[in-house]
């Protein structure tokens, strides 16, 4: 069980959970027709370091000589419904089949205990209107900071509390920086 809060802050924060965030998947131009493919994620969590988000906000609200701390984009990861993840169906509407994880056997238990480096399991308290969710650290994308700030104004759900959000960030960084060694010859 993780802790969350709803601070009344006018900026993005690490650990913010925001709904209905889109990612531009592809843009193709053919014979004068532009086709834009967009992935629409029901929920994402902000992974960018909170100090960077705070520094950017301070620099934006205070008169400053430069824009040194402004961010080009913010890193986010989708939250998937854990029930969908167990069944490997969380990307089914993209025609993708993911590996199943036996909910009531050891793999499911490992997932819920965050013992699988690839995933982070989140179970919310009863006052948060979210089902148990999973972050897949293979899935992340950046989004324009201004766009996400605007999205937060209308679609903010809650913020994962300090320590819990740092745990997510730390596990994400560890997964991203893992070193795959070759198989023994």
């Amino acid at each position: 069980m993780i802790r969350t809060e709803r601070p009344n802050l006018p900026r993005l924060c690490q650990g913010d959970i925001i709904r209905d965030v889109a990612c531009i998947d592809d843009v193709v131009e053919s014979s004068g027709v532009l086709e834009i493919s967009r992935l629409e994620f029901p929920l994402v969590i902000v992974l960018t370091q909170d100090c960077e988000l705070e520094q950017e906000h301070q620099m934006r609200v205070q008169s400053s000589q430069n824009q040194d701390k402004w961010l080009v984009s913010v890193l986010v990861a989708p939250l998937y419904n854990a029930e969908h993840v167990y069944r490997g169906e969380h990307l089914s509407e993209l025609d993708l089949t993911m590996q199943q994880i036996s909910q009531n056997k050891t793999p499911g238990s490992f997932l819920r205990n965050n013992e699988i480096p690839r995933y982070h399991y989140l179970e919310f308290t009863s006052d948060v209107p979210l089902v148990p969710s999973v972050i897949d650290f293979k899935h992340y994308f950046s989004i324009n900071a201004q766009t996400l700030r605007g999205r937060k104004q209308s679609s903010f759900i809650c913020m994962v509390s300090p320590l819990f959000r740092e745990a997510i960030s730390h596990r994400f960084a560890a997964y991203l920086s893992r070193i795959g060694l070759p198989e023994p010859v």
Partner: protein
Amino acid sequence: MPDRLDKIFGDYESGEKTRGTQAKSSTRPVDVEIEEQKYGIAKVKRVRLRAQIIRDQNGTP
């Protein structure tokens, strides 16, 4: 603050109230869709948008 799950899913059959999967309800489809989007039950979707590029007389888009 959004309503709690048990309130949101009050119309759903028992056993699926907080799971958010395969829930069946007599609720109108539009309402279900809104609830799914709002509470993270919906899945990732791909949306394709097409736009005609209009060029001026010089051929500049």
